[in-house]
């Protein structure tokens, strides 16, 4: 054979044989520690610098520790954490959202933070915040910032429709009355309320509070029955809203925010960060103008007299494979409670702090009406979600049902029966 051809072959073979002489990841021996912190915060130019400052401050306080900032787009974060975990190379510290702690924790990917968190730290947290990171009585994640959905309404549009701008609906019945007034009095391209039925994660997050407020607790405590009267009421509300043009169907939650900023949506459920979002979309909402236009309160009562919402929050977890869990825990604590993290990240990103002591320490940062409404009423009303490792599978059945009743012309009772039987099969009941 020609010599060049042989060289070709050898080159090719050496590429293929690489598999054989592979070793494990290098561990440095001089005591230096490198942590990878995966998050979606540093994606945007504005917050990228801020989280960089937070990390720099941590490194300064902890000589010998290097933190690698791993930026991942929010929409790809869940998938990427799974790929890295499945591939045996997960980041030591990860920012987590909503159902992920229970999913990843239940699959064995997260460390039990109960081993590191002391009682004082736990007591400083809200109960609902810790619930959101707990699965099977193991604390897989601690809150990074609190972002449950509250009930937002546009005061100016309320006034325009002849409603009292300062009295948001207290109950769901009031809400429906208000919706009817708004629908009849406002221009036809203004929708009284926004209910997302599009993308799985976002739409479910926005819909759970309605199920909860009507008294439905499906998937909690081992029951997967969606045919109960309480759950039915929530789906009935969705169906009525979609059929009567109360809500703009097919709009994703991000679109709903654009519509809200432009005065095309009057009410919706959303997190405290809505202030910053709406201001960026509509410069006329700067400063006090925002608070004159929008108010936020608890989700209207569907049953009883205790408001409720879902603890859809940002959390921090630690990989079960982390080699230096104590150092990783230090970083988590620093991110949760340090002054620089509060001021450079949590406040600009629009999060309410997860620790009660933070609010007490920096009262000026939380004096505005939205933060006050959150701290006084919305946050105490939040409860953890019915999360477990099957939640992602279950969510697909629920969203399918929501789409069926909202836009698919499906029969309500049949849809709820289908969801129930699918979930019962899934959970082996």
């Amino acid at each position, binding site marked *: 054979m020609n010599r060049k051809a042989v060289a*070709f072959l050898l080159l090719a073979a050496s590429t293929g044989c690489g598999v054989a002489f592979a070793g494990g990841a290098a561990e440095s021996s001089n005591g230096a520690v490198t942590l990878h912190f995966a998050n979606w915060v540093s994606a945007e130019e504005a917050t990228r610098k801020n989280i960089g400052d937070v990390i720099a401050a941590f490194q300064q306080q902890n000589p010998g520790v290097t933190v690698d900032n791993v930026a991942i787009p929010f929409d790809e974060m869940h998938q990427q954490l799974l790929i890295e975990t499945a591939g045996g190379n997960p980041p030591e510290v990860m920012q987590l959202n909503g159902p992920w702690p229970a999913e990843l924790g239940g699959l064995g990917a997260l460390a039990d933070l109960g081993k590191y968190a002391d009682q004082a730290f736990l007591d400083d947290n809200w109960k609902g915040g810790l619930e959101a990171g707990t699965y099977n009585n193991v604390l897989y994640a601690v809150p990074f910032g609190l972002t449950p959905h509250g009930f937002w309404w546009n005061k100016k549009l309320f006034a325009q429709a002849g409603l009292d701008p300062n009295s948001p609906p207290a109950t769901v019945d009031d809400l429906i009355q208000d919706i009817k007034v708004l629908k009849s009095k406002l221009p036809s391209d203004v929708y009284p309320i926004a209910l997302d039925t599009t993308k799985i994660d976002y739409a479910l997050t926005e819909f759970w509070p309605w199920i909860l407020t009507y008294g439905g607790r499906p998937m909690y405590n081992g029951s997967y029955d969606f045919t109960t009267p309480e759950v039915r009421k929530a789906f009935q509300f969705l169906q009525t809203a979609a059929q009567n043009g109360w809500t703009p*169907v097919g709009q994703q939650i991000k679109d709903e925010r654009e519509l809200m900023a432009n005065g095309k949506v009057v009410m919706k459920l959303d997190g405290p960060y809505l202030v910053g979002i709406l201001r960026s979309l509509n410069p006329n909402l700067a400063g006090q103008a925002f608070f004159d236009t929008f108010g936020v309160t608890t989700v209207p009562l569907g049953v009883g007299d205790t408001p409720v919402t879902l603890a859809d929050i940002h959390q921090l977890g630690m990989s079960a494979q982390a080699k230096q869990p104590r150092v990783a825990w230090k970083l988590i604590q620093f991110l949760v409670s340090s002054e620089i993290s509060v001021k450079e990240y949590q406040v600009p990103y629009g999060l309410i702090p997860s620790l009660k002591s933070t609010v007490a320490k920096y009262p000026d940062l939380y004096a505005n009406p939205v933060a006050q409404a959150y701290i006084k009423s919305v946050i105490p009303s939040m409860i953890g979600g019915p999360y477990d490792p099957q939640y992602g599978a279950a969510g697909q059945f629920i969203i*399918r049902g929501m789409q069926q009743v909202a836009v698919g012309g499906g029969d309500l009772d049949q849809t709820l029966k289908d969801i129930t039987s699918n979930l019962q099969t899934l959970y082996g009941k």
Partner: protein
Amino acid sequence: MPPRGHSSPRSRSDQRYAAAFLAPTLAILALVVFYPLATVLASSLRDANLLARAGGRFVGLGNFVRLLTLDEVFPTAVLNTVIFTASSVVGAFVVGFALALALSGRVPLRGFLRGIALIPWVIPGVIVALLTLYMFNGEVGIVNFTLRSLGLIRHFIPWFARERAALAALVVANVWNQTPFYFLMLLAGLQTQPEELVEAAKMDGAGVVLRFLNVTVPHLKGIIMIITALMVIWNFNNFDLIWATTQGGPVDATMTLSIYTYRQAFLSFQFGYSTAISVVWLLGLLAFSVFYIRVMEGSRRA
């Protein structure tokens, strides 16, 4: 066709050269496709979880049996994939061909227009998906406004909240995205169309349509078949566009095999099951391409 007499020194040397020449290609594919593929294929026989792919109970053909007999979504996904692929390929073919015909003649600003026609292909796919979302927005999307001002619709269509409209919108966006590929290849083909053939057909009194069918189409047959095969394979794999817009909804209206596979692996964590779907898909496409290659080689010989 390979020579049957293996003993001749020339055929032996050919065999070696062929091996050496193919080695780099096969080595790269072995590393980045076949090795990873082999490690996941085994999962299709297991009740494997995403985070423990090698684990799980051995279920034999259980995943396949469940998929083909019990799964209600799978037939929908197959049907949607076929509809999505077929309409995308046909649509891109028609528009691309028309554009190529129009821009192969003497047209003012030809070079510039050809450049413009390529843009949809150069825009990163993720942006195409988001642009689709933006343009087909039911409340503020430019598509609805344009259709209404042209008098084609009276009320806005909530594209992504209507089952047929959602799939249609995605096909239109996909056709737009892939038209340049057909356009470019067919434009190239038209350049080499022998003038004598066209002239001869003209002499025979063949009109534009006949000339097109009898001269142009046969001339381009080779290109058309190759591009079509690639487009079919690529569109089966189309994920970014659908995931970024509808995630398979509303009510499974845009659930394709790639979306369903992804959901099974990354949302339901049923890795074994998702691999089984991929295997069925692989076998389907393989059958298609073996058949296709036969047809192609047959027509080439003819």
